[in-house]
């Protein structure tokens, strides 16, 4: 599993190709600069959308609060690139919005930003609109986790409401907000569809361009290794802030009655703050997608693609969860330091951009293909692709990328089955297999199904790895949407996009259920 990571990391220290020298001279700075600027803007975006929303939901009661608290999660169902396609479709020069604005003589300063949507700030906006739920979720959990007594202690020490927020609530939620932001940044660095469509040159587009445009696999791998080191830095910070989240939350009396009822203009402000992200991140684009699909889509051409997608995603996610189960049981039955370190390493896959994994899979696989072809040539067999360019390579990449997702669910499910349950089962006369059958299977069913569902959706959304590794002429929903959008047929891209979003809603709804249960 660690093969692609190892391959890519290997190139961090490999010799320089000619193209790499050129890259380093001219493009590397641009890729790095754009990636960093994009990350910075997304960080500002997700924090300024996610934190106020979490704040309102956690500390105030107002009409519509319960509904908004889960509506705010819905944009998670959107891959950023679909949002980008949708908004471009409705906001382009000949589109309805700008046409209407021109007719009603809207001022230039209002139209200019809309015309310039296809830009780095535009990409940052799209990414922020779908990624803020990470910050919202983490911040909300942190706010709700804070002990009411801590706030009351601050009041008895003479602090006003504002000072309590400034000196207690915000500092204590800071690690959680940081963790949510870092998750959003990992997704930002991994994004390919949005930046590619908006023509922003970042690492991911650079890697694809180097690989296909310059035909330089080594250069692409070296770019990947630089991107990988960016990601590793983020992962380290994310782990650190998670650690702090853990030690800040303890078993104190939780905040319940402390939330303040507000009404009138203050309630309206809270409602607006919470409704705007939902509106722009979900309601508007979904309405557009539904409208376009209903009136313009040729659905029959979509069947084959949908079938491809579902079979591929379904098969892969079952395989991934099977691997995760094996890893989890290996850890449980034969616990060792070595194994748990390996598990952490495998878990890194999720932080890796799909582009990086694709490169990491392509290079060794095509080397193997060459080797096999060379061996078979004397027997008159024409050179062919045995691994790369097959479904196998694609599924392997999915396993590497999404194993961590499955692991998370399976491990937490398994850790809830305390060893004492196994022991009582054995003492009551069950064999090892019997314990597995009558204790573990029923208790694990929920987490396994969840793991499959989450992997399924992630695979459905995954764009760059699929584009780079899919067999020739094998289209999925994401690839189809990407291809149609690339041909500026944005309205035709609506149907596959809508399908991805609708399926993507399932885990969001599940997530909300599990959050509100707590």
């Amino acid at each position, binding site marked *: 599993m660690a093969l692609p990571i190892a391959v890519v990391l290997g190139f961090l220290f490999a010799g320089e190709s000619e193209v790499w020298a050129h890259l380093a001279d001219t493009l590397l700075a641009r890729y790095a600069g754009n990636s960093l600027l994009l990350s910075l803007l997304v960080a500002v975006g997700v924090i300024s959308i996610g934190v106020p929303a979490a704040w309102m939901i956690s500390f105030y009661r107002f009409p519509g609060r319960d509904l908004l608290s889960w509506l705010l999660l819905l944009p998670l169902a959107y891959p950023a690139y679909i949002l980008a396609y949708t908004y471009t479709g409705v906001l382009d020069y000949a589109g309805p919005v700008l046409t209407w604005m021109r007719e009603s003589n809207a001022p230039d300063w209002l139209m200019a930003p809309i015309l310039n949507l296809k830009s780095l700030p535009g990409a940052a906006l799209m990414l922020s609109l779908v990624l803020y739920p990470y910050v919202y979720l983490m911040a909300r959990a942190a706010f709700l986790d804070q002990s009411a007594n801590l706030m*009351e*202690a601050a009041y*008895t020490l003479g602090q006003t409401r504002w000072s309590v927020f400034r000196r207690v609530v915000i500092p204590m939620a800071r690690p959680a907000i940081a963790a949510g932001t870092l998750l959003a940044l990992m997704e930002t660095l991994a994004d390919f569809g949005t930046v590619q469509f908006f023509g922003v040159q970042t690492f991911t587009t650079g890697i694809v361009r180097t690989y296909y445009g310059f035909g330089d696999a080594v250069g692409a791998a070296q770019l990947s290794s630089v991107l990988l080191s960016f990601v590793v830095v983020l992962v380290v910070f994310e782990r650190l802030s998670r650690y702090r989240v853990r030690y800040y939350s303890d078993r104190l009396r939780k905040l319940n009655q402390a939330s303040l009822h507000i009404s009138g203009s203050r309630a309206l402000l809270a409602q607006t703050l919470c409704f705007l992200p939902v509106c722009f991140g979900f309601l508007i684009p979904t309405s557009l997608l539904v409208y376009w699909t209903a009136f313009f889509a040729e659905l029959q051409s979509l069947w084959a693609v949908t079938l491809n997608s579902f079979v591929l995603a379904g098969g892969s996610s079952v395989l991934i969860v099977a691997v995760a189960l094996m890893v989890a049981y290996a850890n449980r039955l034969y616990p060792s330091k070595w194994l748990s370190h390996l598990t952490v390493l495998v878990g890194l896959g999720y932080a890796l951009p799909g582009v990086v994994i694709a490169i990491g899979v392509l290079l060794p696989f095509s080397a193997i293909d060459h080797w096999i072809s060379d061996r078979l040539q004397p027997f008159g067999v024409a050179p062919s692709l045995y691994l790369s360019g097959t479904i196998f390579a694609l599924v392997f990449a999915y396993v590497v990328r999404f194993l961590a997702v499955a692991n998370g669910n399976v491990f937490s499910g398994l850790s809830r089955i305390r060893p004492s349950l196994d022991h009582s089962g054995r003492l009551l006369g069950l064999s090892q297999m019997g314990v597995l059958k009558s204790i573990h299977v029923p208790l694990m069913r929920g987490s396994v199904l969840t793991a499959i569902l989450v992997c399924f959706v992630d695979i459905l959304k995954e764009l760059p790895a699929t584009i780079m590794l899919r067999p020739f002429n094998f289209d999925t929903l994401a690839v189809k949407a990407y291809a149609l959008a690339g041909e500026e047929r944005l309205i035709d891209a609506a149907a596959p996009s809508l399908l991805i979003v609708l399926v993507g809603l399932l885990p969001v709804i599940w997530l909300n259920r599990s959050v509100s249960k707590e």
Partner: protein
Amino acid sequence: MDNAALIIRDVSLTYDKTAVIKNLSMTLKPQELGCLLGPSGCGKSTLLRAIAGFQSLNSGEIWLDDQLLASTTQTMPPEARGVGMVFQDIALFPHLSVAENIEFGLTGWPESSRRARVSELLQLIGLPGLESRYPHELSGGQQQRVALARAMAPKPNLLLLDEPFSGLDTELRSRLASEVRTILKSDGICSLLVTHDQREAFDFADRIAVIHDGHICQFDTPYQLYHEPTSPFVAQFVGPGEMVDAVIVGPRAVDSPLGILTNDTDLEFANGSLVKLFLRPDDLIHDDDSDYHATLVGKHFRGAHHLYEVRLDNGIVLGCFAPSHHNHAIGEKIGVTLDIEHLVVFPTH
């Protein structure tokens, strides 16, 4: 009302729509250490939260140092009351060091006096040199002492302590209660402790209010509560003891299963009335030389002494203290003798 720091007058409170405190009144003198003692759910914590300002009143008034803290129409916000509080779950700010926690409430103090106050308090709680530690690096007892210092730092007019020792183990609990008493006495802060543990209350308080069913049963010194309870509830809540039936046979005499007993003052009951006599284990003591014998039916070794349960000839079982070295077997007949200074007599219902 002269010579009173805290005045609670006719206060009623509800918690989750149930009335938990009903027309309760009490006062604390300046520098007095008071205690609200009662079983869990009796409303004592709700009363404390009302004094701190986290709970509104359904009736009555609360005054502190001639200033109205709360009435049904007027509520001073918690931060303006000058009331400090130590919480059951300690509630130290996990993101701040010990020193930063203690000086949290010292907003507006000049830097130098802030620092002086912090080191003075660390000295007082016996933890000098721990300024830069973080709460999770301290033991439970140390954390609780820091929480106390934090609450004392702004020199509050009243300090509230909400079951502050309940998270600690029994030994530490009692020791810390006496320690905190010493610290508060030396600072002269009027304080009110809430607890359900009578030992903790005895270790801490000058006067204890026993709360039951929303009102105060008795507000007295620990000694009086134990030896002169005014109601059966207080008698049985504050330490062990047994009720036995008795009959009044004179102005100062009752006829009981232990014979005729006399009191040092008049009993306020008519001759011949049936009463309940309350006997504590220290009223009946083990004495090998006594002519009166009882059967040992249960024993609890307490280290420094035994608490025996003995059955008298008439079948009544009573508690009885015995010296640690008098180790008798269950079923043995042992000599007992009475050591009663004051009779505790209640009417039969």
